[in-house]
């Protein structure tokens, strides 16, 4: 049953706003992304609601496309990280001692590896693009998710209700689906929300370094990078993408917290 959660509502509104902007960008953009007809670094006016960047491109258009990219980067990475991470984590939890130790060692190495460095390796191999960024970030994320899944699943497996499920005749597959996953997903969900935010920031960092999606694809990170040189004369070019980043990251985290609370049966009817 649904329960009330202020976090969920607030998070939903914030995330929803960004998602709306991204959706709208698919059907309507004020200007062409490559259109450089606006004056350079013009302030906000009726023609350009957010002003223009240093090449004369409409900033609002850039930001709207950036919303799309941020959601793809965050969502895509989380998808890759979750599928890979949860899969490997469950494997490690059920594995024999030897296999578990080996997997854990590999995961530790991956975690210790700086995400950006990892991303650069992937991009060097695949070429700079949004999809290689998503892949790289997702890969780095999967190691953390795997470690978390492994420890949560192991803890669940020591509980008597798992033994009871076995004596009830439940198969291991069903046990994972009906008992293990439902008991670990709340914590993992919150972690994935955190990772979403980090992924968006990571993609922004990559774009800032020039390793993300190449122009004319406008990631908020790249907009920030380009606005760097002119931050004193035309600050709005840096403030807006930064603000939108903050809104998205906070929104996703609040929504995940709320979702976790809503799905928790122990929060209702407290004895």
């Amino acid at each position, binding site marked *: 049953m649904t329960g009330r959660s202020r976090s969920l509502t607030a998070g939903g509104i914030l995330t929803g706003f960004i998602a709306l902007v991204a959706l709208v960008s698919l059907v309507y953009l004020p200007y062409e992304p490559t259109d450089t007809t606006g004056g350079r670094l013009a302030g906000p006016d009726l023609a350009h609601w957010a002003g223009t960047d240093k090449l004369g491109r409409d900033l609002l258009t850039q930001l709207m496309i950036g919303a799309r990219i941020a959601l793809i980067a965050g969502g895509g990475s989380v998808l890759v990280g979750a599928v890979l991470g949860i899969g490997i984590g469950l494997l490690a939890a059920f594995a024999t001692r030897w296999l578990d130790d080996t997997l854990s060692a590999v995961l530790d190495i991956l975690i210790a590896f700086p995400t950006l460095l990892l991303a650069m390796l992937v991009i060097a191999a695949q070429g700079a693009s949004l999809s290689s960024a998503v892949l790289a970030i997702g890969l780095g994320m999967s190691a953390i998710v795997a470690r978390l899944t492994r420890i949560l699943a192991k803890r669940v497996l020591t*509980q*008597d*209700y798992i*033994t*009871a*499920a*076995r*004596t*009830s*005749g*439940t*198969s291991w597959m*069903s046990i994972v689906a*009906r*008992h293990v996953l*439902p*008991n670990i997903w709340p914590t993992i969900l919150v972690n994935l929300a955190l990772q979403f935010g980090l992924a968006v920031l990571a993609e922004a960092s990559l774009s800032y370094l020039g390793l993300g999606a190449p122009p004319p694809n406008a990631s908020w990170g790249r907009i920030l990078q380009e606005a760097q040189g002119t931050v004193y004369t035309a600050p709005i070019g840096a403030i807006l993408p930064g603000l939108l980043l903050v809104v998205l990251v906070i929104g996703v985290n609040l929504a995940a917290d709320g979702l976790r609370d809503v799905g928790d*049966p*122990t929060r*209702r*009817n*407290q*004895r």
Partner: protein
Amino acid sequence: MTALLEAHAVGYAYRTGQPVLHDVSFAINAGESLGLVGESGAGKTTLLKLLLGLAVPSTGEIFSQGARFDARNRAQLRSYRRLTQAVFQDPYSSLDPRQSVEQIIAEPLRSLGIARGRVELKGLVAAALLAVGLPPNAATRYPHEFSGGQRQRIAIARAIVPNPRVLLADEPVSALDVTTRVKIIDLLADLSSGGTPERPPMTLVLVSHDLGVVASLCQNIVVLESGRIAEQGPTHSVLSAPQHAYTQRLLASVTRLPGA
């Protein structure tokens, strides 16, 4: 009469070679409840795992209704589970906190393919709740809303819903308050003696370190010491005239209430 459940020279050792059980033999006849008594390290937990098909004996054999039982055989294990169910010690760990009471109790019905259709399933769950003294509206609630004693009742309901012939209980009341303990013992006594055509009486196999609990519920008793059987026989005779030194020590160490 073929024994319901029988252990024949059962032994168990860890892969490292450390022996836990050695040459354990006993028989459980229908209607004769059995108590497995011993202190920690006696091997009770291991024996329980073997009797639940969660592990396979290193030596010796287990017979279920006269037929050799091999837990590695899937088909055998499945039909064995219809006959033998379990209740565990910790009522806070044996119920999945994210499942409703109905889902919890219905699990054996689903996994063993017993109920045909949702209506029959709900009916069986309701009957089980009734049998353990819980109200029907408990079905839609969650474990955290219940006390330790009530949770244990839920666990018992789950165990009896597939109508097993044997109910294995591992320290079922140790984690409960004294006043609750007695109520659950009465419930178990009820389920193992009384019966209706829909729910024939079950044979209780009780594993415990508490002699008082075992004495309240079991007709026969097996005393385990360090993986071996020290003594076994009818509870009445073993407790009134213990032969083995360990049994005598065990009895002597129970703190009794002064004055009867």
